[in-house]
């Protein structure tokens, strides 16, 4: 049985984004999810930051202040080793969830 819920999905999206882009600030993550999903998904901004801080406390991601291309100070996040492992698990869980949901939808 795959443990999965909406929060888990947001975690997965954030972790995947960071693994694809290397290091990114919160606003960048929102834009990336929107762009990469062809505007299908939109991360709720109010929920993103609590999630980022929780994942940081869990040791999955690490943060640092740096300058953006436009010269603005922003907090950048990147994956840690533990985060990479967590991403693999989250991906596996998600695959199973999708498989399960699809099976139910196709059940006749």
């Amino acid at each position, binding site marked *: 049985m795959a443990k999965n819920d909406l929060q888990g999905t947001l975690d997965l999206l954030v972790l995947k984004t960071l693994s694809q882009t290397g290091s990114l600030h919160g606003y960048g993550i929102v834009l990336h999810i929107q762009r990469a999903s062809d505007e299908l998904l939109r991360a709720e901004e109010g929920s993103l930051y609590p999630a980022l801080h929780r994942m940081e406390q869990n040791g999955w991601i690490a943060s640092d202040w740096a300058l*953006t291309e436009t010269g*603005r100070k*922003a907090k950048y996040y990147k994956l840690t080793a533990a985060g990479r492992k967590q991403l693999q698990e989250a991906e596996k869980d998600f695959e199973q969830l999708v498989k399960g949901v699809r099976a139910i939808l196709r059940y006749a």
Partner: protein
Amino acid sequence: MSLYRRISNLLSRSRVERDIEDELRSHLDMRMEDNLAAGMSPEQARRDALLRFGNPVTTRERVAAMDVALALENIWSDIRYALRQVRKFPIFAATTILTLALGIGATTAIFTVMNAVLLRSLPVPNPRQLFYLNVPTQQPYGAWNTGNGDTSFSRPVFEALRQDHRAFSDVMAFAPLSNDKVAIRIGDDSPEQAFGDMVSGNFFSGLGVPMARGRGFTLEDEKQHAAVAVLNYAYWTRRFSRNPSVLGQSIYIKGLPFTIIGVAGEDFPGVEPGQLTDLWIPLQRGPELSPWGQSGDLKLYGSPNWWCLMLIARLAPGVTARQAVAEATPAFQAAAYASLGTPDPSHPKVTLALLPAKGIQGLGDNYREPITILMALVTLVLIIACCNVAMLLVARNASRQRDFSLRMALGARRSALLRQLLTESGLLVLAGTLLGWLFALGGARALAAWSQLEVNLKPDRTILLFACIVSVFAALVFGLAPLRTATNAPVTAALRATPSTSYQRKRRSSAVLVLQVALCFTLLTAAGLLLRTLLKYEQTNLGMRTQGLLVFGITPQRTMDSDAKFIFYRELLDRMRSLPGVESATLMDNRLGSGWSNNDEPTVDGVKYSSEQVPLRTNNAGPDYLHVLGIPLLVGRDILDSDTQSSPRVVVVNETFVKKLLPNTSPIGHHLGDPKDHPYTIVGVARDSKYRSVDEKPRAMAYYPYTQNGGAFATVQVELRTSGDPLSLLPLVERAVHEMDANVPLEKPMTQAAVFEDSYSQPRLFSRLAMFFGLLAALLVGIGLYGTLSYRISRRSTEIGVRMALGAQRQQVSRMVLRESLQIAAIGIGIGIPAALLTGHLMGSMLYALDPFDSVSLLLALTGVVGISLAAGYLPAHRAASIDPMQALRNE
């Protein structure tokens, strides 16, 4: 906001929190930038960014909640917030802390005494195994006792019990060297007095008392009746300033030298009830040092029927008290009757009982009830104090409710608010407890001084635990109660412009006030009863003139036979009479008002009465007895110098004696005593006067000339009458006695008035404490009423404004407020009356010459409570009456 405050806020704000805020702001800024780039107006760009982001305050709190580092910072910031509140409302904080401290302090102080008197065990290993041996049936018929009927044993009984190791692993014997303090001398210092016990050789080892210096006694010391002494640590501290070189020094007890060989462990008070024993010596054989200072024919070794030793035993391992009694009883009874012959079957056999060595034996019985009642009274004060603080907090939180609602509307979480309020309450409780602990330390010390209880009142773990439990209770009562009301308010209701009075809350606070008034009424009644008891004591007619009387004891220190003693006493009396300032002098056996008496069964004209029919008290008196003491002589004559050993035997009796034993006849010439053994002829009748204590009932009394009744007594009480200050005679008296014998100190010199006053020192102490509690309760209830009424007026100012605008008179308004105060008082008194009557009933044994349902005390309490509610209502009523209707309505 001042520049200073702004800078300090900036500095004190958490780094972590600023970090979160910066991060969120950078997010919003980047969104705005992009929006501007997409062609929005600056205003549009900002609105869009905020809309997408949602409530930044909520987000910030949610983010912060995720940060562990912040959890610790939150506690700290809560504390800082609470401290800021305290600083902002210093009067509120001070009132709360002080109220709480008084409640906790008073309760803990009384508990300290209760602990020492009723609960505390001896500071030795396994104190629960220690029991005092007791004879509930008193000594067997025919045996001599010491006046302590149920606690004394004969030496053969002690020897039998200590052999039996199945019941007890050790039995220790002890007996005082005198009825009071014993005369001692250290080096060439002038004679002084100390409490001394003679004890068996296993006393220290059997109890398990550690030695601070030197050694304790051994069985060999007991066998040899060694002239060695062990000092109490407190006595060593007081008398010798803990000088370690006292070991090996000599101390003279009744003129006999003893070598100091040890100092007992620091906290060991001895095992005498309610008394610190100053020093111990092994059991002695010689006639000079006999238990209880006995100088007659009774000897510790050689009088097997004299029950004079007190016993304390340690149970054998694994044996319960019940098993030990069953095990030891046969040996006990055998030894009890061994020297008395076959027990008379008409008398019940003696039985043995064990009393746990806990608190103060004997004294515990006298104090148990009063102390329990005091504890109950002080608990009522504590409850009133806690109620007050709870009401204060509720009122304060209610006035902050708009603030809370506003913060919740802006996204603050309820749990954060709760935590903040809890921190505030916790801080107040902590401060109150610390201050209360200080009060308790001072209070217990003062109590020890007032009560003249020689007990160790040092705070120990039990007391600390007690204080903690009390303050946790206080914290729960008023820390949690106000929270519900504070945070349950619907946000919208509280944000409305007018604060509305919640009817439910008003009812609840009224209920608390009624409860307080009821408790206060009960306390005031109890205080009234005890105060009236004290007054009764003070107004009691003693039947003599105590002003100008000095009394002191003299114990001849050399062994003398009766004749030598009579000569000594005669010389003493002559010397005293010749002192300048002394108008007259006499002496007696038992000091008046000291609680001691001789008791007998009267035989009048050959007819014997049992002590159940007519108990007779007697005293052996010197010449001019009635004249010196100022006891009116009704018929016949006083005891005279001419009543000597060789003259005809005479006796003076009192009114009650005549009323009970020789009614309807002239008592002069009748005979008291065994007709076959030179009975005493009654030569005078005196008015009734107090003998043992102030509160005794009149009893038949006989005064024998001291030269004619029995042998000479060990200690004589000398009474001097002077026209000046009795105590100013002391230096002269001391010099005169010193000339007779340098080893003889004046024992307990004091005015006769003071002796009688001391005889009711316990009721005096209790009445003072109860009055203190009553006043404290009244003050607290007054503050509570005042606070609540003022708060209600401030909330109803609009309503009152409307009433006045519609034509209500100022008088009507102020009467309305006073009526509210009096209504609360009336209901409170209604509930309080049964409680007060019950309290009075429970206090029955503490009252003297007073009905437990004393209407004067009830009336006093009633007046007190009504007075308090009028006083507490006066200011708010005045304020309500001076509300300006225009002003009040404009505020709406």
